[in-house]
């Protein structure tokens, strides 16, 4: 009758899953290396649906995309610098070959980065999650990035050179985005983890969904397309135009919520309202009653 609580078996299974996920990701990307897998072939309200892929002389993908989002890889010439930076900052955990086998030799403890695509690498580095503050934590936290934008691009270029994959780093063109469609899509796809107000919260087993405040547009798009960590990835089920609408909604309405009613109380909903109502409302009024009445 009792339900198994977080036992050793569960913990081992969990860690195993953690190690298995990048393998799955790798398998997916390797499978779809022929064409951009996240570019839907369906038309979107009559707008042209072009994914003009631009490649260089060696056949490496430079960029692709459309009016809503352009995806671009950093120049392969950065790969050498990227390798040097990687060895300095990342190889301790991810190994000198970026395959998740660190120098100490225990394979599988840290993710294999080969074949993850530039968008993935760029997301983790530019959001400050990597290098990890606490490598043993279940989920890395966002913080001030340790590496600059150019350094992140260089590392991404090097890892991409090991095994090219998709998606590339998106640039979202926000003009023409529909914030109302973005709100609808956010409510349907994102609110279940990130809350409808985008504040983030604790999820199962020490994982959590981060707050959507102060997240640059590029990182929002990267997260949607690559599905970092426990976040599912949204590939064919969201077109670039839809992703653009979501990014517009996140960077405007969630970043600057309209609170015409006063202080937003942290967007925590009825919990915070209850505290304020009871402490400030009833408490204050009881204190006033203490003055109005007599003490005997």
């Amino acid at each position, binding site marked *: *009758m*009792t339900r198994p*609580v977080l036992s050793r078996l569960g913990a081992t299974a969990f860690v195993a899953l953690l190690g298995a996920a990048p393998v799955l990701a790798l398998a997916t990307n390797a499978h779809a290396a022929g064409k951009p897998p996240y570019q839907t072939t369906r038309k979107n309200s009559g707008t042209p649906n072009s994914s003009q892929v631009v490649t260089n002389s060696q056949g490496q993908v430079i960029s692709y995309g459309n009016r809503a989002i352009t995806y671009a890889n950093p120049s392969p010439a950065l790969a050498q610098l990227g390798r040097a930076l990687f060895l300095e900052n990342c190889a301790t955990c991810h190994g000198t070959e970026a395959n998740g086998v660190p120098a100490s030799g225990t394979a599988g403890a840290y993710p294999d980065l080969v074949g993850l695509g530039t968008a993935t690498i760029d997301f983790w580095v530019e959001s400050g999650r990597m290098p990890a503050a606490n490598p043993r934590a279940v989920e890395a936290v966002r913080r001030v990035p340790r590496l600059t934008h150019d350094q992140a691009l260089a590392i991404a270029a090097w890892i991409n050179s090991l095994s090219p994959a998709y998606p590339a780093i998106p640039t979202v063109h926000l003009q023409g985005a*529909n*914030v*109302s*469609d*973005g*709100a*609808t899509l956010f*409510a*349907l796809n994102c*609110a*279940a983890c990130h*809350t*409808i*107000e985008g504040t983030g*919260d*604790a*999820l*199962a*087993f*020490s994982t*959590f*969904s981060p707050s959507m405040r102060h997240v640059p547009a590029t990182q929002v798009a990267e997260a949607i397309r690559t599905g970092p960590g426990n976040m599912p990835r949204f590939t064919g089920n969201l077109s670039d135009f839809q992703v653009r609408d979501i990014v517009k*909604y996140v960077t405007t*309405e969630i970043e600057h*919520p*309209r*609170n*015409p*009613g*006063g*202080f*937003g*109380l942290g*967007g*925590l*909903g*009825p*919990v915070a*309202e*209850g*505290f*304020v*109502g*009871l402490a400030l*409302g*009833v408490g*204050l*009024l*009881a204190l*006033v*009653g*203490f003055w*109005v*009445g*007599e*003490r*005997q």
Partner: protein
Amino acid sequence: MSDVAVTKRSQRRALGPYGRVGKTINELDERLGIAKGGRSFLDKVYPDHWSFLLGEIALYSFIVILATGVFLTFYYTPSQALVTYHGSYLPLDGQKMTEAYFSSVNLSFAVRGGLLMRQMHHWACDIFVGAIVVHMARVFFTGAFRKPRELNWTIGLTLLILAIVNGFLGYSLPDDLVSGTGIRIAYSIIESIPLVGSYLAFWIFGGNYPGNGVFQRFYVAHVLLVPLIMIGLVSAHMFLMFRQKHTQFDGGGRTEDNVVGKPFFPVFMAKTTGYLLIITGVIALLSAFAQVNPIWQFGPYEAARISYAVQPDWYMGFLDGALRIWPSWTFHSFGHTIPFEVFIPAVLLPGVIFNLAFAWPALERRFTHDDEFHNLLDRPSNRPKRTAAGAALLAFLFMLFVASSTDVLANFFHVSLNTVLIAMRVLVVATPFIAYLVTYKICKELQAVHNAGRRKTANIVSRTPAGEYVATPSPLYPDDRHDKLEPTPVPDFISTGSPEVTESGVRTVER
């Protein structure tokens, strides 16, 4: 008389010694007989300890709710028909939504003063239920529910239940994502009742979820049925308190047979009306600076959408907490299912708690063998078992409230959500016991302090010539003398002449 010149002074004299007021009273008294009752009403003495004003917070926030609610009814449309929003709030522009949601958003943005009224209505309701709980705690801990006030206790408890229900119905009316989820949960709770659950759910909602005309029904219940019952019960509550007279603490000349305080007119009336204005003002200030229930940010409700970190309003939080921590006990045999994981925390548990509260006056009479009238209140520390039991129940309910925010706690303290939940299961069971023991101990110690601090009446022992010892109370020492005035009767205005005494035994005004 007709030859006398009519002057201002003679006109004034013609009205009698009290002018137009006196004349009006004469006219009314001839028709309605209000003079004697009216005077005793104005002279009525009200004890004015500050803890007696907690019920007034509830009463006056109820008035604010009614007043702001009337405003809201002019603008809300209780309809599930779909419309497309085109208004000032761009993130909703072009979205399909129910008329209920549309009218609520429209009220918030396009109606002058609409957002203020909505927020005042919501904050007043949060404060209303909180004040009822605090007032009920005061009544419980001081024993004011004892004979002859058991009926008032029952009425008050019913009011609490109705306030919670009406609050739920009310915040579900705008049909936003957060409250719509609550309606889904309510449907499932009703469904979970054995034997009749699905019939009840289909009856209330008009079919399978999401039902048919839910908002019309909720609206009628929220605006008409429940408020009517509540107004009736509040009036009965006030009338009983009026007729039985308020209780009071002992000391300072107060006894079981008198009431000490201030007369209704003008003192109590001034203070209580001032309190009404302050309560309304504080609710308005809260509504100005603290946003509540921002439905435009939640978006319209659709049954396949959900937001994380969704809780009901605080007074339903104990149910949400119980539902979260309850193990998944389900009974599934003989072709039937009883979802105990829903039925116990959401139906049986509140049922047991409220029934215990309803039965408490009778239980206490049984266990203390006390059938006496009690117009004097207990100090909570003088009744350690009752106070400790009340504290244990409050601690239990408080832990259930805390359990409804497991995710917020896990996020705030950076602990695993699963750990928080298991910790809450332990705390919900352990805390009431600890609360009982701690409270009992504190009461006992307070009793000792009370008795120790008070100087016992000194006696002068003298010996008579025959050899007897006689003890007479000594005069008060300066330290013992109170510098407060002894209570006196309300100064009355009455012509000389013997007061009327009726023989029916109905209370006689003997002034």
